[in-house]
């Protein structure tokens, strides 16, 4: 269960304090697929960064599986992020000089998993997202956008996280590929009981998720 209580994040812009996220409250049960929609500058990305512990809130609390992550130290947050959270980015953000397989192995190596086991797990994950053995050995530059995003999803799943945060995962893809990626994420949420939160502009995607939140000027205007 993901619980967000009075979550705020303010920035100083000159003499003015800007609230990118302003006292937000919501909950997402385990295994649900939720979406956050809103205009540019509404605070979607900031909210996602806060949920992913990439940034610290200036107020409020985030509970994941009953644990308040806002009170964790920086060092503990790194561990927490590695074990509990997976990220999928709009621009895929794969490491360009590593193969698809090596990209998926990367978070497993951070976890300290042994080489052989690491390779086996990464191979399974890539097979799960529809990769062939030949494709696994390709570097990102030789993969299509949809393939790269599938690698990014496999990488996000590597350490069996309880929460996957996806920032515009279909934003750089054509409609068909975007639908395929959406279906993949949706299936993962159901089959692996993983909570998935997607930030998107695409209202058609938002309409298919279990929950949808709308942000406007940092405030949650609808659930």
């Amino acid at each position: 269960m993901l619980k967000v209580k009075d979550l705020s994040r303010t920035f100083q812009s000159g003499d003015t304090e800007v609230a990118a996220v302003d006292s937000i409250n919501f909950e997402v049960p385990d295994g649900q697929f939720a979406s956050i929609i809103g205009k540019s500058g509404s605070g979607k990305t900031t909210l996602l960064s806060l949920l992913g512990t990439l940034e610290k809130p200036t107020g409020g609390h985030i509970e994941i599986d009953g644990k308040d992550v806002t009170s964790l130290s920086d060092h503990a947050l790194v561990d927490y992020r590695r074990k509990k959270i997976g990220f999928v980015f709009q621009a895929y953000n794969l490491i360009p000089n590593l193969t698809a397989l090596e990209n998926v192995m990367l978070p497993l190596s951070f976890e300290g998993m042994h080489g052989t086991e690491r390779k086996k797990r990464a191979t399974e994950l890539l097979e799960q997202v529809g990769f062939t053995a030949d494709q696994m050995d390709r570097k990102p530059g030789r993969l299509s956008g949809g393939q790269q995003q599938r690698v990014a999803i496999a990488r996000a799943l590597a350490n069996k996280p309880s929460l996957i945060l996806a920032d515009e995962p279909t934003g750089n893809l054509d409609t068909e590929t975007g639908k395929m990626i959406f279906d993949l994420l949706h299936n993962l949420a159901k089959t692996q009981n993983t909570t998935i939160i997607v930030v998107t502009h695409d209202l058609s995607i938002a309409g298919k998720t279990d929950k949808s939140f709308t942000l406007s000027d940092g405030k949650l205007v609808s659930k």
Partner: protein
Amino acid sequence: MNTFTLGVRNAFRNATRSLSIVIILGLSIGLSLVMLIAHQAVGQKINDVKSSVGNTISISPAGFVPGSEANNALTTSDLDKVKSLAHVSALTETLNDRLTTIGSATFGRFGNSSPTNNQTSLKSPINLSDVNKQGGGLHVMIDGSSQLPSNFSLPIQILGTNDPSHLDNGTDITIKSGKAIDGNNDSNNALISTDMANKNNLKVGSTFTAYGKTLTVAGTFDSGTKGGNNTVIVSLPAEQRLSGNSGDVSSATATVDSIDNLESATAAVKNTLGSNADVESSQDQVNNTIKPLENIQSVSLYSLVGAAIVGAIVILLVMIMIVRERRREIGILKAIGGSNSRIIFQFMSEALTFTILGAVIGLIIGIAGGGPVTNTLVTNSANSAANSQQAGPGSMVTRMGGPGMGFRRPTGGALSRNVGGIRNTLTDIHANVGWDILAWGLGAALFIAAIGSAFAGWLIARVRPSEVMRAE
């Protein structure tokens, strides 16, 4: 794939840039190693020279001016006090003078003897034409005229010494015929060079005159030099008696029982003789002689450190550039669970890869260039030192001892012999590349990598993982 491997692989992401970095680092480390090799080789030479110079003290009359008749002599009684000093194990005393030959000009004399009674029947084995052939540029005028008598002969050095095994400049002599003389026995026996014997048709047992007395040839010798062979050697008491300088000594060399006592013994001799004598230990003279080497050692040390710092700055700037280029990637690594330390280690591995490859090139440069560069530095420095010495005032006096110049400056027997020998071998330096050089090369690479990564590491730690979201 572990973090280290990832760092190593990252070093080859941009082959052209990596090659450029490695070459620059290689040159930097190579120069550093070349300078280290030079520094070590010169340092070893300095140590060898210092340890081999011996433990002698040169004693000469204070303020000795070559050619001046006003020079004060040391006295045997002064030197007897030196003999009795602690740690002084031997004392070689000499009194030298210059004998005028038939047809030669009147020359400056040592001490108070009359300039008219130092004539000899001998003729110098050195021809004036030989001197000019050697570029000596010797011009002799007698009574204001440059017209020389047909029987003109250069003056002859006469050396009274209590150790007649070598000349006063330290050159060893080899007895060719007859036998050596006793340096402490007052007799009219003399050693003359084989050249001089041939020139004057003399052999062992023949006689010649000097100071109006008849001297007997006890033996003939060869010193290996024309100047040295223009010398008559007699015992010290004989020369004191013949020249009328009873009790006078023009130079002395004290031998100290141990190099460890050299400094204290030198101080004791200075205290004993006070302002009457100039006292210099072999270490003092060697210190002057090896000064060019010490300069090279300093230059090479500064160059070594400078080259290493340049290497560190190069890798520092490169790593800063790389980190700035890969901020987004660092953000990704942090977002997916990479810790600061792990990511810093990855970049350090990259820096280390550059520097290790640079070190390999540097070692090749160092091994290939260490010897030649050291030799060039030493040779140039030695030549500069030699040129400056030759250009100095009075150099002709000490080298040629030309007419009208009087006595050569006392140079102090064994000490001079040692220093002379050292000067000859000063440029004979062998640069070796040992394990210590290899270890230093590796150490320099690690140092450069560590310095180069340090600031990069700080930059990495400052990258916030949320930047990867902002960069979308």
